[in-house]
């Protein structure tokens, strides 16, 4: 076999003075980067920096460093580009990757700053005063009609469409059972139920063991229709039609046959060992009117619970969003170009789509201009990395945000971007039983609850410093944002002023 030209990305160092040759690292490495030849010997080329070995080495004997190998400098021909070409020259294939866009595009979240109260309006202490994050996802009427009962109490005459109530404006993003392990799915379901938010299933159906979490689940119906049946559609508080995904707009999905074991086979309703191929488009949706028909077909099936439509943020997103809302969607899920994936062609992940910040601002504006903003809630996603991103997304106009990568990191993910290999050493993005059992759903759920708790507490601090005590007073309130280092046109698109104004 011809030796690969591609140098190792990482160098694994084992301190043989400290090493007691217990081989725990070998058991933990799922990428075959460690061997035992009278002592632990690294195979540097295989290492992905998942940190599993060094986390579990009882002697602290292992370290992983980026390979310092020198490349002749070229600003244009970065080492990464050279490696990509070597890989393609060796294989002739499309390069695959996992997680989200990693190229150094400007991160607009980091160019936005929040306001705070000083003197003229008092800030509010969330430890002493009520501070409300409760959020309702779903279509709202433009106005309400009331009358009064015999005893003078207020009574609602308008019929309110069903809503999905969440205790914090953060939900778990759709990541399929198949891309993720059952334990990862279960951890998110437990956490969603405990904290009072929802988990989106992603396109791989819902394992029957998770049906008891139905009050905290939004089931997804994607182009492959995997695991979609009447009971499934009603196994949550709403249904999402997935049109696109920020990491790979316009691209379908492919779950290789080796991941289709007994349980996934049952859940997805496909034979064991067959590849699960999601078509790029829905083959019954070639136009907006087709989408409308599917939305209403689903609504008929689920007693008019909220239907969400998820799209990737692309150039014309505002007009598309308007069409989707007019087509009857109750929730619009916008996924920016940094959104994650279990597997995507690298070239698509890194070069297609637009940032969520701009897409969200454009969509919120357009729906307001058309007077239909009440008709749908907006969920923003595509790399929400902290509670500050949550606050900024809400100020730009989102009703809530979805976290995918963030939730995986909370469970242990190292963002090594090897989800597509099925070798996830942390038991998250894998179906190998010896790996999936590494993730204890109860422990992972607690870590997720802790994250939601931490971010929600931080959100309350942010609201308090802004002098408001309800999340709806920040929602769409772009006056509380300022831009730093953004050009005039970008500021204009986002409807915010530069810092200092």
């Amino acid at each position, binding site marked *: 076999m011809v030796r690969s030209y591609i140098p190792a990305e990482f160098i694994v160092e084992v301190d043989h003075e400290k090493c007691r040759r217990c081989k725990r690292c070998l058991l933990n490495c799922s990428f075959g980067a460690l061997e035992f030849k009278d002592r632990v010997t690294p195979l540097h080329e295989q290492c992905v920096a998942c940190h599993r070995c060094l986390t579990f080495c009882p002697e602290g004997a292992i370290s992983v460093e980026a390979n310092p190998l020198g490349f002749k400098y070229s600003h244009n021909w970065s080492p990464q580009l050279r490696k990509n070409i070597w890989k393609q020259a060796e294989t002739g294939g499309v390069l695959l990757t996992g997680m989200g866009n990693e190229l150094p595009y400007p991160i607009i979240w980091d160019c936005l700053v929040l306001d705070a109260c000083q003197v003229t309006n008092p800030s509010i202490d969330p430890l002493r005063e009520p501070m409300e994050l409760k959020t309702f996802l779903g279509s709202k009427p433009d106005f309400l009609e009331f009358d009064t009962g015999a005893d003078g109490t207020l009574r*609602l005459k308008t019929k309110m469409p069903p809503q999905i109530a969440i205790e914090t404006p953060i939900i778990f993003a759709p990541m399929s059972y198949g891309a993720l392990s059952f334990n990862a799915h279960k951890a998110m379901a437990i956490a969603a139920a405990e904290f009072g938010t929802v988990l989106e299933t992603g396109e791989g159906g819902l394992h029957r063991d998770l049906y008891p979490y139905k009050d905290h689940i939004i089931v997804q119906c994607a182009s492959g229709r995997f695991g979609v049946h009447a009971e499934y559609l009603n196994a949550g508080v709403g249904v999402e039609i997935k049109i696109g995904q920020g990491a790979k707009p316009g691209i379908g999905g492919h779950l290789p046959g080796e991941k289709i074991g007994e349980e996934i086979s049952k859940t997805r309703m496909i034979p064991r060992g067959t590849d699960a191929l999601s078509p790029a488009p829905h083959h019954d949706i070639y136009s907006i009117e087709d989408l409308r028909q599917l939305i209403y077909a689903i609504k008929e099936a689920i007693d008019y619970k909220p239907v969400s439509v998820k799209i990737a943020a692309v150039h014309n997103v505002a007009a598309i969003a308007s069409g989707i809302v007019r087509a009857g969607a109750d929730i619009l899920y916008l996924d920016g170009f940094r959104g994650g994936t279990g597997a995507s062609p690298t070239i698509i992940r890194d070069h297609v789509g637009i940032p969520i910040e701009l897409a969200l601002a454009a969509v919120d504006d357009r729906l307001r201009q058309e007077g239909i903003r009440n008709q749908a809630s907006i969920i923003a996603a595509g790399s929400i990395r902290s509670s500050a991103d949550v606050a900024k997304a809400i100020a730009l106009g989102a009703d809530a945000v979805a976290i995918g990568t963030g939730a995986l990191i909370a469970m242990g993910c190292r963002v090594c971007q090897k989800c597509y290999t099925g070798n996830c050493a942390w038991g998250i993005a894998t179906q190998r039983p010896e790996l999936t059992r590494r993730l204890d759903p109860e422990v992972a759920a607690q870590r997720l609850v802790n994250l939601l708790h931490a971010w929600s507490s931080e959100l309350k601090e942010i609201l308090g410093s802004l002098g408001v005590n309800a999340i709806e007073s920040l929602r769409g309130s772009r006056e509380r944002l300022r831009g730093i280092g953004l050009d005039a046109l970008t500021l204009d698109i986002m409807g915010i002023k530069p810092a200092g104004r």
Partner: protein
Amino acid sequence: MWLKNNPRPDYNYQKDISGCGLAGIIHRQRKLIPGSEIVKSINLMNDRGNGLGSGFAAYGIYPEYKDYYAFHIMYGERADIEGVERFIRENYEVAKIERIPHYHVSSIVFHPRLRRYFVRPKKDRPDREVAELSDDDFVVRTVMKINVEENGAYVFSSGKNMGAFKGVGFPKDIAEFYGINEYEAYIWTGHNRFPTNTPGWWGGAHPFTLLDWSIVHNGEISSYGINKRYLEMFGYRCTLMTDTEVMAYLFDLLIRKHHLSIETACMALAAPFWKDIERLPEEEKMALKSLRMVYGSALVNGPFAILFAHSKGLVGLNDRIKLRPLVAAEKGPLLYMASEESAIREICSNPERVWSPRAGYPVIAWLEEEGTGITAELASISEGASLRL
């Protein structure tokens, strides 16, 4: 300059910030109260303002023109008048045009040209060819049009049988300037302003009005950004660089356009907390839950105390955690509200009841009205009665 700053794109405005004092009186049996009363009351709270804005709203002052909309318009230059008056004559039956009476006051060196118009939309006005607006809607549209498009003109009052009088100065100066003592009204509100920026703009003084609604406000609306964008969805244009106008427009939208009761509208603006809503009986819980879900963007967050006057009564309202002062007092058919108790006692030395309204609970006083079933008894004061917490 004292009329209007340069026009701005929608989001690129400078928000005005101000602290304030306010006072209001209503005689529920429509007995006229001389202007000197409100002037005395607001003057006592002189230190709540800094001389950069003051104003009054009076109801029942134009009985001879009570069926006409009374437009109070300020103009920067003489040349600004022509275009506006041409528009008015084209679209309105004009009963009277006159200079708003005003007097020389040594501390007020510059002031805009002030004119008032008693008008009624023409039945065959030009827009009828393409639109079916009610008279009120047409007046709202006129106000928005003049305030947005006519750079040198600003409509600061547009209701029937009521008027706003405001400008840059301490209350006593503005009162003297407009001769407030010469007016008699059954509802009065007054305002003393302490702006911390954009000084010297006459349009920025309170009250803010639209049709019969008038608002005097002490506070800063921390949710201004979303309140404004919400109103824009319904065609309102917030032009005055100050957050108080959103209050006036929110009341107009919720009460006049969406037909919510004043009480319900107040519960949208100063919404009860979820924890309190959860404790209500099912039907009421659903009503208030829906109110918050649908009108979340109308929740006015941040410190405020307002007096909101309209053709049928007077309302006092605090933000939901009462971050600004508001005191109420009652004596017979008279209800007083003010930022400080002293301002009430200045004009009513022995009130029957003095109280501090609860956070978020409106104090609502109705005028007695012939033929509408609002008798003296019904015209009593209610305080957030529908929310039994």
